[in-house]
C-alpha cells in the first residue's frame, strides 16, 4: 500500500510542479498568434500592453470590426485609430474592453460606439472563448468582465482551462515549429472581408421567420454607466448604427423598439447618434457580403462617409485635450 501511494505521488507531483510553468509557457506562446481565435490576441495584447495608443477608438461587435477602417481614418485625419470590435459579443464584452483601455492605455479623443439590434441582448454562450485563454490565470478583472463560459477554477488553477483545447495546442505547435505561417489577419483591430454577397435571404427567412430580440435591462444600465463615464471623463462619444442591408432589416420584429432605446439614450445624455439604416449604402447589395455586414469595398466607402458626417456634427477635427 505504501509503495502504491509513494509511486502515485511520484507520478502526480511533476504534473503539479510543472502546471504553472507550462501554463505560463503555453500562454506566452499562444499570445503571439496573429490568427488563432479569430485573430483577437493582437488586440488583447495591445490592450494589456498599453499599445492601443490611438486618438480614435471604435467599439462594437463584428459590425464594428468589419465596417470601420482605422487606416482610412489615419490617412484622412492623420491621427492614429484602433478598431476594438469583438466578433460575436455584445455590450457587456465591449465594456470590458473599454475598462482595459481606460486602465492600461492613454485616453482616446473620440470613441465611436457602433450599436446593433443585438447589443443589449444577454447571450448565454460565450462566443469564441479561446480568445481569453492566455490572459485568464489569476485575472480577476477578466473573471468579472467575462461573466460566463468559464468556471472559477479556470481562472485560478493553472492549466485547467486548457483541458480539451486541441486547437489551441495545435496553434502552439504551429508557432513553435512553423512561425512563418503566423500571418496577421487584422490591421489595428480591423478585419475587412473582401467578398461578394453570399446570403440567401429567402431561405433564411423561411428557416428563421421573424426574430424578436430581447434586451436585457442590466446591459442597458451598463450602457448608461458607460455613457456617463465618458461624459465624466470628457471623452467625446458618438453612437453609430452602421449600414445594414435593407432586406435584412426586416428580420427582427422589434427593431424599431430597440432603435428607439438608442434615440432616447442619445437625447438623455446628449450623445450624437448616426443611423445609416436608411442611407443609400444600405440599399446596395454590392457593398455587403451578407445582410448584416459590409464587404471591404462597402466598409471603405462607409468609413469615408462616417468621417464626412463626423465633421458635419463637429466631432471632427478632434478637439485638443482639455478643450
Amino acid at each position: 500500500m505504501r509503495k502504491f501511494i509513494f509511486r502515485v505521488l511520484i507520478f502526480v507531483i511533476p504534473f503539479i510542479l510543472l502546471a504553472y510553468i507550462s501554463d505560463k509557457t503555453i500562454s506566452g506562446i499562444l499570445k503571439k498568434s496573429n490568427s488563432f481565435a479569430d485573430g483577437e490576441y493582437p488586440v488583447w495584447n495591445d490592450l494589456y500592453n498599453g499599445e492601443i495608443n490611438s486618438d480614435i477608438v471604435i467599439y462594437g461587435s463584428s459590425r464594428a470590426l468589419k465596417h470601420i477602417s482605422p487606416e482610412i481614418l489615419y490617412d484622412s485625419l492623420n491621427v492614429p485609430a484602433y478598431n476594438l470590435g469583438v466578433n460575436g459579443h455584445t455590450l457587456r464584452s465591449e465594456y470590458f474592453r473599454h475598462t482595459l483601455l481606460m486602465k492600461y492605455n492613454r485616453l482616446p479623443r473620440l470613441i465611436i460606439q457602433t450599436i446593433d439590434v443585438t447589443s443589449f441582448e444577454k447571450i448565454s454562450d460565450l462566443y469564441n472563448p479561446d480568445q481569453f485563454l492566455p490572459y485568464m490565470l489569476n485575472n480577476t478583472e477578466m473573471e468579472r468582465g467575462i461573466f460566463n463560459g468559464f468556471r472559477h477554477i479556470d481562472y485560478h488553477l493553472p492549466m485547467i482551462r486548457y483541458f480539451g483545447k486541441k486547437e489551441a495546442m495545435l496553434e502552439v505547435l504551429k508557432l513553435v515549429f512553423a512561425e512563418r505561417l503566423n500571418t496577421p489577419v487584422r490591421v489595428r483591430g480591423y478585419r475587412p472581408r473582401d467578398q461578394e454577397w453570399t446570403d440567401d435571404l429567402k431561405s433564411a427567412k423561411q428557416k428563421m421567420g421573424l426574430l424578436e430580440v430581447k434586451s436585457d435591462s442590466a446591459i442597458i444600465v451598463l450602457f448608461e454607466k458607460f455613457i456617463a463615464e465618458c461624459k465624466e471623463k470628457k471623452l467625446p462619444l458618438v453612437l453609430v448604427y452602421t449600414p445594414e442591408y435593407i432586406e435584412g432589416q426586416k428580420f427582427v420584429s422589434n427593431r424599431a423598439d430597440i432603435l428607439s432605446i438608442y434615440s432616447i439614450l442619445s437625447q438623455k445624455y446628449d450623445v450624437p447618434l448616426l443611423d445609416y439604416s436608411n442611407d443609400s449604402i444600405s440599399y446596395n447589395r454590392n457593398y455587403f457580403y451578407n445582410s448584416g455586414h459590409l464587404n471591404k469595398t462597402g466598409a471603405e466607402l462607409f468609413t469615408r462617409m462616417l468621417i464626412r458626417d463626423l465633421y458635419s456634427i463637429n466631432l471632427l477635427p478632434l478637439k485638443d485635450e482639455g478643450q
Partner: protein
Amino acid sequence: MLYNSLTFGIFLISVFFVYWFLLRANHKLQNYLLLSASWFFYGWWDWRFLLLFVSLSVFNYLVALALDKAQEKSIRKIWLVAGIVLNLGVLALFKYFDFFVDSFIDLVSLFGYSLPKISTSFVLPLGISFYVFLALSYLFDVNKGVIKANRNLPEVLLALQFFPIILAGPIQRPSGLFPQISAKREFDYARVVDGLRQILWGLFTKVVIADNLSSFADDIFNNYTFYSGSTLLTGAIFYSVQIYADFSGYSNIAIGTGKLLGFDIVRNFAFPYFARDITEFWKRWHISLTTWFRDYLFLPISFSVSYKIKSERVLGIKADLFIYIVASTVTWLLTGLWHGANYTFIFWGMLHGFFLIIYQWQKSPRKKFMKKRGINNNNKFLVLSETLLTLVIVLVSWIFFRSDSIGDAFSYLGILLSGSLLSLPEFPNMKICLVITILTVLFLYVEWLGRESQYAIQNIALRFSSPVRWSVYYILVIVIFFFAGLGQKFIYFQF
C-alpha cells in the same frame, strides 16, 4: 456522474481510500461502503430510479429465495415466471411501451382504422437493460441450480447494483460476483496498478478517440444528404471506430475500477475488429451480452427445437442448420430489440443474424472446398481478405444501427455507393480531422500490437523498462488532457 468526469475521479479516489485505509480489516464494512457508494453513484443521476432499482433488487432477492425453497417444479415455474414478468415488465414499460403502442397503431392504420396516439413519455432509467439482464441471470442460475440463492440481502443488492457495472455493464452475472463479495479482499499492488493502467487506456480510448470521432460522425450522419460518397464512407468508418472506442473504453474503465477495489469483472471486448469472420466477431464484441444471449436464449431454444425434430431434414434443410436458423433468428431479433426501441436496431440485429446463418451454412462446403484445392486455412491473403470482408459487413450494419430510420440508412448507402465515392472526402475542420485520424490510426496500431492481452497496453509492464513505461503513461495523460473531446456521453448509456 460520467466516468470521464472530475466528479467521478473525486468519488473514486474517496471510495478507494476509505475502502483500503479505514475499512481494510473488515470486508463486511467494505461491502457496506461499496453498496452505499453504488447507491450514491446511481442516485447522483436520479434518486427516484435508485428507489426503483432497490425495490426491484429486493424483489429479485425474495424470488431467488423462493425458487431455492420450492421443491415442486410447478411452484418454481410460477416464481420464475413472476420474476421474469416483473423484470421484463419494468423494462417494457420504460423502454418499449411507446414503441409497441406506436407500432400497433401503425399496423391497425394499414387496415383503415385510426387509434389515438398514447405516449408515456417516461424517462429511461440509466442502465435498466443491463440491470434486468443481471437480475434475470441470477434468477435463471438459481432456478437451474447453478448457484444457491444468496440469503445475505446486502450482498445481493451489491451484486445487482455494483457501481462500476450498473450503468452499462459488463453484465457480470451474480454467480461470478458472489464469491468475490463474500470473500475477504487483500490489497494487491499489481492488480491495482493493472486497474489504473486499464482505466488510463479506457479514458484515452473514450475521451480522445471516441469523443473526437463522434463530432465528425454525428455531423456526417445528421447531414448525410449534403456529403459525397467518400465522406459518407469515412463517416461510417469513423462511427465504427467511435462505437468500439466508446464502449470498449467504458468497459476498460469499469473493469479497471473493479480491479482497484479487488474485483475481477468479466471481459467485454477482445479486439473485435481483428476478427476473421462474423462468428468470431461476436465472440469478441460485447462478450458479456453475447454469452448471456447464448446461455439463456440461444442454447435453450436450440435444445428445445432439437427435441422436437425427429428427421434429418426439415423443409429441405439439414436439421442442425434448421435449429441454428430458428435459434439465431429469435436471438438476433431480441438482441437488436435489446439495444433500443427502434426498427433500425431490429434490422441491425437481423442483419447480423442473417450473416451468421450464411456463415454457418457455408462452413462445411468451404472446408471441403479448401481441402480439395489444398488451400491452407492460415494463408495470409485469405486471413486478410476474410478479415476485411468481416469489417465491411460490420461497417454496413453500423450504418443501420446509427441511422434514424431504415430508410435513412438505405439512402446513406445509396449516396455512399454513388459516383462521388471516388471524390476526396470533405470535412468542416480538416486540420483537426487529420490529427484525430492520425491518433485513431495509432490507437488501432497499439490495439493490434496488444491483441493477445486483455486490453491493448496490459503487457507494457512486461515488455518495457520503467522509464519507457512511465513515459507512455505521461504521454497518454498529456494527450488525454489536451485532446479530449468534450461533453460526450457514452453511447451505450442510452440502451
